[in-house]
C-alpha cells in the first residue's frame, strides 16, 4: 500500500522548555542627548503626558513609526514620606504612583492596607522602607518574560564636581597637557548574585535587592571627553571599618520588569570617617599613579560613604532655572521634571531579558523503506521513474520540506531543510522538527 503520511507514535513527540536570553544594553546617550528634550515633541524620544503621572522613553523620536518603547519613568512617595508636602501640587500623583506600584508589587497587609516597599524584602520584620522612590517600568518589548536575575546593571553619574573642588586625592606623577575641568562621580548599581539570593514574597513574582557595586570618579576635559577614573572603589571590598554600611539602592521585580530605585543615591556627600585607597591619574598624554587617602561618608547612615570630596549637590533643574537637591526635587517638582533629572544622570542601563520557549519536538523517523518515491510531477516521464534505469536500481527521492498534519490531513506546520536531503533505501533519517510556542 502506497502512503504519503506517517503517523507519529507516542515516543515520537517530546516537549521541552528553553530559556532564551538577550542582552539589552541601553546607552545613556539614547536617554538624554541624542534626541531633543520633551519640549520639542517633534524630535524628542521622551514623551510627557498632560496628566504628568509618568514619562515614557523611546529609542527614537516617538512620533516616528519605527520608535520602540524602552521604559516609563515615574516617582512615588508613600503616605509616610516626609517629602509628601501638602502644598506640592503633584503630591497626590506621587502618592498614587507609589500606592499603585506598591499594591501590585508588595501587596497588602491583613487589614487590606498597602504595604510599602521594603529595602531588604523582609516585610514581616519591618525594617527600612523605601518611602520615596523612582520607578522604572521596562517595556514588555524589552523585558519579554522576565529580567534575568543577576544581569541588571545601572550606571549613574550621581554627581558632578568642578575641577576646583574635585582634585584627586591621589598624587599622580603623570605629565600631561590636558586638565580635567570637571569630574563625574559614577555609581554602578546591580543585582549581582541575585540568581542565588532573591525574594519570593511579592505577589508579582521574584524580586532582588539592588546594591551599589562600584564607585568611580571620572575626569572630563573641556571637550567633554572622559579620562580614566581617578578613583575606583569596589563596594564588595570595603575596608573592615566600613562593614555594615548600607549599600542597598532599591529593588528589582524580575517578572514585572519594574525597578524601584532609592533617590538617595543622588544625595550630596559629607566627608566623614573612614579611609580607603584611590588612584590618581594625570590627564593628557602622560599618566601617573599615586596613592592617596579617600574618606568615606554616608547620608544619615542610609547609603555607603562615597567619595569624600565636596561635590556639587545640585542634581535637578526645573524649567524656571531653579536648582534642586533630589529631596528638594521630590518635594517641589512635578513627576516629569524629577524624571528628567534621573534620565540625564543615567550613563548606562543593561540587563538580559528572558523568553521562555516551550517547544514540542516531533521526531520524524524515516525508515529505510519510507519515502523513497515522489509524487513530484517531474519524478515521472510518462509513468516511468526518471531516477531509475531498471527495476534493480534503488529509488531515490530528495527531501526539502517536512509537513506536520492533523488527523484530517490539514497542514498545520511546515519545516524546511536548508538543502535537499537524499533519501533512498540504504539510509534512514530522524528529522527533529521543533515547534515553538
Amino acid at each position, binding site marked *: 500500500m502506497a502512503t504519503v503520511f506517517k*503517523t507519529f507514535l507516542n515516543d515520537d513527540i517530546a516537549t521541552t522548555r528553553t530559556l532564551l536570553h538577550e542582552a539589552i544594553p541601553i546607552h545613556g546617550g539614547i536617554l538624554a542627548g541624542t534626541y531633543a528634550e520633551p519640549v520639542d515633541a517633534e524630535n524628542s524620544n521622551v514623551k510627557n503626558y498632560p496628566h504628568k503621572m509618568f514619562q515614557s522613553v523611546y529609542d527614537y523620536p516617538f512620533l516616528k513609526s519605527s520608535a520602540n518603547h524602552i521604559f516609563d519613568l515615574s516617582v512615588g512617595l508613600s503616605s509616610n514620606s516626609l517629602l509628601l508636602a501638602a502644598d506640592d501640587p503633584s503630591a497626590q500623583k506621587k502618592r498614587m504612583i507609589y500606592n499603585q506600584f506598591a499594591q501590585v508589587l508588595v501587596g497588602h497587609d491583613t487589614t487590606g492596607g498597602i504595604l510599602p516597599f521594603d529595602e531588604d524584602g523582609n516585610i514581616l520584620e519591618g525594617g527600612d522602607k523605601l518611602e520615596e522612590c523612582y520607578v522604572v517600568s521596562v517595556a514588555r518589548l524589552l523585558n519579554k518574560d522576565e529580567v534575568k536575575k543577576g544581569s541588571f546593571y545601572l550606571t549613574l553619574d550621581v554627581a558632578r564636581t568642578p575641577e576646583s573642588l574635585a582634585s584627586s586625592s591621589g598624587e599622580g606623577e603623570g605629565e600631561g597637557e590636558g586638565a580635567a575641568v570637571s569630574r563625574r562621580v559614577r555609581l554602578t548599581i546591580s543585582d549581582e548574585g541575585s540568581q542565588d539570593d532573591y525574594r519570593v514574597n511579592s505577589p508579582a513574582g521574584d524580586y532582588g535587592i539592588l546594591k551599589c557595586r562600584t564607585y568611580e570618579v571620572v575626569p572630563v576635559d573641556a571637550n567633554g571627553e572622559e579620562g580614566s577614573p581617578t578613583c575606583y572603589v569596589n563596594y564588595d571590598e570595603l575596608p573592615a571599618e566600613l562593614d555594615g554600611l548600607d549599600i542597598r539602592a532599591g529593588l528589582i521585580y524580575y517578572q514585572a520588569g519594574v525597578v524601584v530605585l532609592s533617590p538617595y543615591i543622588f544625595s550630596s556627600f559629607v566627608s566623614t570617617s573612614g579611609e580607603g585607597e584611590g588612584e590618581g591619574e594625570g590627564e593628557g598624554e602622560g599618566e601617573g599613579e599615586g596613592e592617596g587617602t579617600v574618606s568615606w561618608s554616608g547620608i544619615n547612615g542610609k547609603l555607603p560613604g562615597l567619595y569624600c570630596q565636596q561635590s556639587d549637590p545640585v542634581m535637578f533643574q526645573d524649567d524656571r532655572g531653579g536648582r534642586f537637591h533630589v529631596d528638594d526635587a521630590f518635594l517641589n517638582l512635578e513627576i516629569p521634571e524629577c524624571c528628567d533629572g534621573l534620565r540625564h544622570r543615567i550613563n548606562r542601563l543593561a540587563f538580559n531579558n528572558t523568553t521562555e520557549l516551550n517547544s514540542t519536538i516531533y521526531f520524524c523517523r524515516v525508515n529505510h523503506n519510507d*519515502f523513497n*518515491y515522489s509524487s513530484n510531477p*517531474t519524478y515521472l516521464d510518462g509513468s516511468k521513474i526518471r531516477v531509475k*534505469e531498471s527495476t534493480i536500481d534503488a529509488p531515490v527521492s530528495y527531501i526539502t520540506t517536512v*509537513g506536520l498534519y492533523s*488527523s484530517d*490531513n490539514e497542514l498545520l*506546520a*511546515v519545516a524546511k531543510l536548508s538543502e535537499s536531503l537524499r533519501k533512498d533505501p540504504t539510509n534512514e533519517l530522524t528529522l527533529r522538527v521543533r515547534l515553538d510556542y
Partner: protein
Amino acid sequence: MAFLDNSGDIILDAVLTDTGRARLAKGDGSFKITKFALGDDEIDYALYRNKNHPDGAHPSGSAYYDLDILMTPILEAFTNNTSSMKSKLISVPRTNLLYLPVMKVNEVVNTQTAMSPDFKAFVCAVDRDSEEVFGYTNDSPSQGVLFGENSTEAGGYVRIDQGLDTTEISSRFVIDSDLMETQYIIEVDNRFASIISVGNARPATVSFIDDDNVASYYLSHGTDTSFVLENTEREPESRTQVISGPRGTYLEFKLRSSLELNTSRYLFDMLGNDSKVEVDGQQYEYQFIDSIIRVSGATTGYSVDIPVRFVKVT
C-alpha cells in the same frame, strides 16, 4: 579516531501555517499534530543525469547523477497551507518499481468530458442564462461546458483516470493493489462551486473548508460509488482511455455553482474579467473567473490541476 557521523539527525524549526494558527486560536482541541509527510516541491527530477536524461548519463559516473539536484536552493517555508507540500514523497515498501501511477484528465471517454477547445479549460456556466449561451452551439451541446445550475439535466463533467501510463506494460494486466488509488481529494474554491456526482447530482460531503475558502472533498473507492469507480476497460487499443498501461480507478464529478456566483456579480467584479463571446452569430458580453480544481490521490500522492473558467453572461 574519526568523528561520529551525525548527519542522520537533523533539527529543524517549524512554522505554523495559517490553518495551524487558526486552529490553535480556536482552542477547541482541533490543533493536534498526528502525522507527517515529506515534500520535494523545489526538486526538478529532470536534472537527474542518468541514462534517462536527454544528454545521457553524467560522464563522471553515478555519484554525479544528482549533482544539480543537490545544488538546488531551498525556499523558506510558506505559511499558507495550500502553498506548501504540493508534491509529497511516497512510501512504497517495494524498491523494484520502475513505473508509478499517474492521473490524467480523460477527455476522450465521451464528448461530455472534453475541455473547451477555445479556453483549454472546463467552462462552468454559473446560471441558466449562461448555460443557454455557452451550453449549446447550433442547438448541439458545446464541448467542455459544465452546467452550474441545471447540472442534473445536461452539461459535461470531469473525469480523471488513474493508472500506469506506459506501453511497456499491457493494460490487460491488473494494476498492483498498492498502486491503485482508492481515495481522491478534490480541492475547490468553496466560493465558486461545490462537487456533485455525475449520474444523480448527489452533492459530495465537504471534509473541511480552510481559511482560504478551499473546500476539500475526500471521495473513496467502495464508499462514494457515484464518484470513484474501478476502471474495468482492459483493451489496450481502446479509444476511450488515456492510460496506456494497467488501469486503476477513475473519478468523475460535476460542479454546482455557488449561490453567490449564481445570483450575484460581486465575485466576478472583484476577481474576474470581462469578455465577449459569439454564439450562433450573436455576440454576448460575459464575466469570468479563472480558477483551478486540484485532484490528488490520497494514497499515491499524485495530483493534477484542472483549469476551470466560471462564466456569467451580463
